[in-house]
């Protein structure tokens, strides 16, 4: 025998069908009129955006430079609707909690979304009588809005500006002379698009701060191997390979990293 709640909602749906049959209006032309107007608005907005993109620079360039796997400075940036996920990776950092940001939270959110009809089984649909739903909706909208905004306005490090920082790094970290070429390479090679070093740089995608990387004493060989294939050495690392730099440059970078024992 079905429970009272099951019985109630079946009766309510039966009543819905009767009400619609008796008092409803036909889809054509009534609802279809609204749908058509709205669809026209959507198409106009899309065409309008295409025009704005073509004739102004408000929406950014229509193409960046051709892809170059050997390039040294790039800003890995997804399309704007991924910013909220992208920014999560500034909150959850490599290596301890990065999995939460990359996989954990999106998976949990997706499962929660799928489960909503089974979490909230009441018949009540009026918002004011669904306080948890209101709070959840407001929190989700707010956090997605804030994360998207933060992701959109996240500052990107510029190689030229960072190069000017190198003398300060030498002073603060007491870098030896042989680490300076590596430091310059480090500043101009896009490392700081994701990593931070003495407060400079992007802190993107969960990349760790490298100011005191050398204090871990991992060794030059390890650093070179890691730069060539980050995920081979650190399982699951999202960092791209820098093997295209060539061994000589990687060696310079490794010397610099090993010499960075933290500010003194």
């Amino acid at each position, binding site marked *: 025998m079905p429970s009272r709640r099951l019985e109630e909602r079946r009766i309510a749906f039966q009543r819905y069908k009767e009400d619609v049959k008796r008092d409803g209006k036909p889809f054509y032309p009534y609802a279809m009129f*609204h749908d058509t107007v*709205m*669809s026209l608005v959507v198409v106009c907005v899309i065409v309008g955006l295409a*025009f704005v993109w073509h004739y102004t620079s408000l929406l950014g360039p229509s193409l960046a*430079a051709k892809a170059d796997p050997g390039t040294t400075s790039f800003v890995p940036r997804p399309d704007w609707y991924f910013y909220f996920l992208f920014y999560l990776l500034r909150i959850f950092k490599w290596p301890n909690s990065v999995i939460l940001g*990359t996989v954990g939270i999106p998976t949990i959110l997706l499962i929660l979304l799928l489960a909503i009809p089974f979490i909230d089984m009441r018949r009540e*649909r009026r*918002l004011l009588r669904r306080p948890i739903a209101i709070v959840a909706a407001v929190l989700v*909208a707010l956090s997605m809005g804030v994360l998207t905004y933060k992701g959109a306005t996240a500052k990107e490090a510029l190689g030229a500006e960072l190069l000017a920082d190198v003398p300060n790094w030498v002073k603060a970290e007491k870098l030896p002379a042989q680490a300076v070429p590596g430091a310059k390479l480090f500043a101009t090679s896009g490392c700081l698009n994701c990593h931070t070093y003495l407060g400079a740089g992007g802190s993107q995608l969960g990349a760790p701060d490298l100011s005191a990387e050398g204090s871990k004493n991992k060794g030059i060989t390890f650093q070179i191997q890691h730069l060539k294939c980050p995920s081979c050495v650190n399982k699951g*690392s999202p960092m791209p390979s820098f093997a295209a730099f060539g061994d000589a440059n990687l060696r310079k970078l490794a010397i610099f990293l090993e010499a960075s024992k933290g500010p003194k």
Partner: protein
Amino acid sequence: MPSKRNRKEQMLAAAQYPLDWLEERSGLIGGLRYFLFRKVPGDSGWWHTLGSATLTAFLVQLGTGVILAMYYKPDPNSAYESVQHINNDVTLGWLVRGMHRWGASVFIILIFFHMARVFLFGAYKYPRELNWIVGVLLLPLALLEGFSGYLLPYDQTAYWATVVGININGTAPFLGPFLASFLRSGSEIGADTLSRFYSLHMLLLPGAILGLIGLHLYLVVRLGVSSPPWSSEAAGRDREQAPAVPGSGLVNPAPRGVTKRPD
């Protein structure tokens, strides 16, 4: 000589004949008639247009995507140049590409708006749970369309965002490394990656999306749409027991929504 009236009837019969032919063999005309003239709650309005607006955005993506596929070349040596060619040489190519590029954003925004509307209306409740699930499944598919399409222009942004995007997929426990090497189709992003993304972007994902949209619409038509929850005439609302008027011996009938007949 047939009279004018007769002639008109003949014309009508001639126009009707192919419809009857189709109906007799497929039932499609009856189905279309059911779809068009089915009743929807009298208080449904602009809020209920977000779903069809999302569908429209998707159809724009299909249409512009077909045109772009006529000119695009999924190969690292010519992809970038073919996009430049679309932008600069093909008649209105910039418009089609712009519509596809920004239509994607509009599509995703509308999915979120539509989802928010359904959530706030409580329209996912019995018996529409399954349709909510189908809709939620459409969201990651749409995001994957965005991700796979982002690589195709093969410019610096596209390339490096995809490198990192694939690496992020690789951080997933257990499946991550397999997923990453599947997406990359090798150890480096290259010719196979680009054609793989192209195939996913224009065959597998749109096919899956179309199939789920079909199921989604079938369930909408089968179950009907919910009235706005605040509506005093909401279809299926609880009828309060009207108090008996003392002494009269009469019981007030339950209040009913004012019946508006369209004709």
